[in-house]
């Protein structure tokens, strides 16, 4: 009987201190977004999802958007974020540096859960190969992206370009994928890069874009927009978030939000999803611990 009392007391003490007993409604979550498209569009895209989660879980969701990709790694702890929809490279960096765990990833309407990066040029530019890009202007997106920087760098290296400073007459970081597309469309840059999901959205809105641009290289599949949360977030909260997001395609309201986002559903995300990112870093000769991901 005494042993039972001790066990019960211990269980109560453990239970009181356990995060499992944290009531979700007492907490609000700050979720970070990366500027994969211009920040207004990006905020607009995720706001209905935040409202949906709030309604289903009772957890208040606040969204914060970073002006640069690399900022999400730097500011995650500083701004006390609880999670973020990370991109390809930012996700890998966050898993390594911030002790976050991948929770869910989006499944697009065509069933795909990953993205490909494109290297694009204007069809009338006369650029058909890496050799034609010599002394031209290149618009990367951000150093903290695979599809918007690392993949083009690896692709150029595979085609003999070691020093981009001397190869291009100018190269710069546009800050978002759509800005890179518009720079090429306008002739403000000769070569750009974009991930397929953003490219498709732009073409859907304005089909003429496809008539004017040529895709000259496609990257291997990369993870995208994966919701990763702090590892020390209460277990019940992680579980609740995961469940709500994984099942949102089963109710009409959830399906409506997913449709607005151009998604079919969410599926479970794993650390292994980031394997292609680590492989790409390796191909480029970078070490993730020392990789300079900040875009000045």
């Amino acid at each position, binding site marked *: 009987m005494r042993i039972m009392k001790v066990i019960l007391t211990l269980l109560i003490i453990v239970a009181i201190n356990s995060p499992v007993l944290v009531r979700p409604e007492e907490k609000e979550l700050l979720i970070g977004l990366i500027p994969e498209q*211009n920040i207004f569009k990006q905020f607009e895209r995720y706001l209905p999802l935040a409202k949906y989660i709030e309604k289903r879980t009772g957890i208040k969701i606040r969204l914060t958007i970073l002006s640069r990709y690399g900022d999400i790694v730097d500011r995650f702890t500083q701004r006390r974020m609880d999670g973020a929809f990370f991109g390809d490279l930012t996700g890998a960096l966050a898993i390594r540096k911030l002790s976050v765990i991948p929770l869910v990833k989006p499944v697009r309407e065509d069933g795909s859960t990953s993205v490909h990066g494109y290297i694009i040029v*204007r069809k009338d530019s006369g650029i058909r190969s890496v050799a034609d890009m010599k002394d031209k202007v290149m618009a990367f997106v951000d150093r903290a992206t695979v599809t918007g920087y690392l993949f083009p760098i690896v692709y150029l290296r595979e085609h003999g370009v070691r020093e981009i400073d001397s190869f291009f007459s100018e190269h710069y970081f546009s800050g978002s994928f759509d800005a890179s597309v*518009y720079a090429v469309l306008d002739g*403000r840059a000769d070569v750009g890069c974009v991930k397929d999901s953003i490219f498709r959205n732009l073409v859907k809105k304005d089909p003429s874009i496809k008539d004017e641009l040529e895709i000259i290289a496609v990257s291997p599949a990369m993870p995208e927009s994966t919701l990763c949360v702090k590892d020390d977030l209460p277990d019940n909260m992680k579980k609740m978030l995961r469940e709500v997001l994984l099942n949102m395609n089963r109710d009409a309201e959830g399906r409506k939000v997913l449709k607005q986002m151009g998604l079919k559903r969410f599926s479970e995300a794993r650390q292994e999803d980031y394997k292609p990112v680590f492989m790409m870093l390796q191909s480029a000769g970078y070490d993730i611990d020392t990789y300079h991901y900040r875009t000045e």
Partner: protein
Amino acid sequence: MFAGGQVSIRANSTGVILYLIGIITAVLLFFSSSHAQMRIIGVVFSENVPAYSRINSRFKDILKEKGYSKRVRFIEQHPNPDPLAWSNAIRKLIVYDAEMIIVYGSGALEQAIFETDSIPIVFVNVYSPDRLKINKRNVTGVGYKIPMTSLIRYLKEMKETKRLGILFSEIEPDSVLQMEDIVKACEKFSIGYVKMPVQKSGQVEERLKLFMYDALFFTNSAVIGKTYPECSQIPRSLNAPIISTMDGYDDSVVFSLSPDSDAQAKDLADIVISLINGRKTNIKIVRNNRLIFNLRLAREMQLQLPIELISGADRVIR
């Protein structure tokens, strides 16, 4: 001793004279050789076009930086933008023994080609020169390309446009090309348009008053550039946003997509230096376009503010 002294003085005088002759000869030889190296370059541009002045100034700076400023002498002509004045300016340069003639814009280029087929002609700020059928061996230069669809794409985001007024110069071949390309873009995006041709600067005001339009595009043109600033209040009074491929009219143009002046100046300097050194050069096409968005004006005109313009423009006027 005295006599010896006289001989000595005479010998000294001869030496001094010979010495002076030597110096004078050396100086004359120096100046004559410098003069022989000095190249006369004629330049023709209409002063009222801001881009021309900017390119020309930067071009001269580059030549100076590269040590060519003492090897060339510029004779500039700033004619009225009309065929007769362009021709006269080029003839004057031929009389001045210009060894090379730089012409800004396709109107002056056309007259230069007509006036000489022996003096090297270098054009600057000409749209799509590959389509102008310049088959002369003495002609090279710096051209540019602007995707006209980009202009229409941004315009559509700003205002639902029913009829775009297209102001262009019939006497400048590349202005006509721009008109043709913007017409194609309008048709692609299902926007109505009205062509507003001018042949003289004095016609700009009349055309702006005569036609009906709810947005206005004016091409890069010396003819239009001369008088447009005085008439810009006309489309403004109709609340018609103005877009252009000409930069330098920031007060009245809502946005412009134009070739970068510095890049044109750099390519021009490369071509001129090559020609000075007896090397042949091909026509260069500048692709570094610049997007300038007048956010302040767009707000005043209560237009939609496309995020692509705010976030993507090289310069936003606030």
